[in-house]
């Protein structure tokens, strides 16, 4: 019962983790991804990705710039140009 989350930049694989929920800053508004989300492909704007390890846990913030988010059967992959 976990979402597989990957954050990749051109320079490295920043994060590859099992998490509970991730909030992604989409171009057309933020969206949150839980396990079993429908397949989705969205561009993202500069902003913060919020990662919640477990339900109700304090979210961890990762600032990212430009890119693409994709949800498929294997989980969520965020391709960002830059991540801190």
């Amino acid at each position, binding site marked *: 019962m976990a979402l597989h989350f990957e954050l990749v930049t051109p*320079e490295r694989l920043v994060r590859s983790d099992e998490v509970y929920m991730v909030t992604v800053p989409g171009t057309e508004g933020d969206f949150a991804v839980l396990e079993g989300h429908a397949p989705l492909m969205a561009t993202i704007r500069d902003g913060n990705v919020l990662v919640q390890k477990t339900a109700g846990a304090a979210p961890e913030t990762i600032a990212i710039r430009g890119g693409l988010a994709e949800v498929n059967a294997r989980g969520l992959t965020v391709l960002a140009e830059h991540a801190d």
Partner: protein
Amino acid sequence: MASLKALKIRINSVKSTQKITKAMKMVAAAKLRRAQEAAMAGRPYAERIESVVASLAARAGGEGASPLLAGTGKDQVHMLVVVTSERGLAGAFNTNIVRAARRKAEELEAAGKTVRFYTVGRKGRVIKRFYPTGVVADHDLSTMKVARFDEAKAIADDLLARYAAGEFDVAHLFYAKFQSALVQIPTTQQIIPVSVPTRDPKLAPTLSNDGDAAVEYEPSEEQILADLLPRNVAVQVFRALLENAASEQGSRMNAMDNATRNAGDMINRLSIQYNRTRQAAITTELVEIISGAEAL
């Protein structure tokens, strides 16, 4: 025959050369490891973006597609982006890349096309000698210690601006693909318009391989593609920079290893010559003394 002193000086000079080449080899070996790691770390992103572009392009291609995908409809002006290193003494590394580019240029010119060059790195500037008017831009890498994405993006943005201005129709990228420390392959890759790789079903399952499952697009497929294609160019350039960095160090390590070995051989040969000369001198001296004593 060379005098003893001259030989001694020669041996010492070769010895200090050997010290330098040996040090350069070790430095290259250390840098190679880092560059290789960077190239590895860059792979997931490049692979994923490539697979997304491929799957989107297959669907959104056709009429009214972005010029980055469909091309300008012409095939007249070719831009050759030649990525080389800032430093020499790396064996045939730069020569090979430049040669690949020149061969392509000759081929294109024979076919009646116009060829332009965009050089990246100091060692690519030799192209100016063969095509004095063909080089339209030169990107300096001297401030770059490790390949950074920003650098690749700057190059890509410049290229895209020139493409949008109609300066060229097709762009090719030249770099050395890193295979191992011993083998670097000069590679040509078409980056504009994007050449969509034919998907190999045997490849590891990559992103967006869920067949035609109802994937939601936000915004539309076309817009995502429009956002993605320029980014893809930057990614390809970045990959070239990374591969080149690793190849350069591998090539240099190899060249310096050879140089060190050659210097060692030379020192051996010179030492033998030195000893022979020394002994000959002693023998001559002895003969002189003995014959002098006998004459008394």
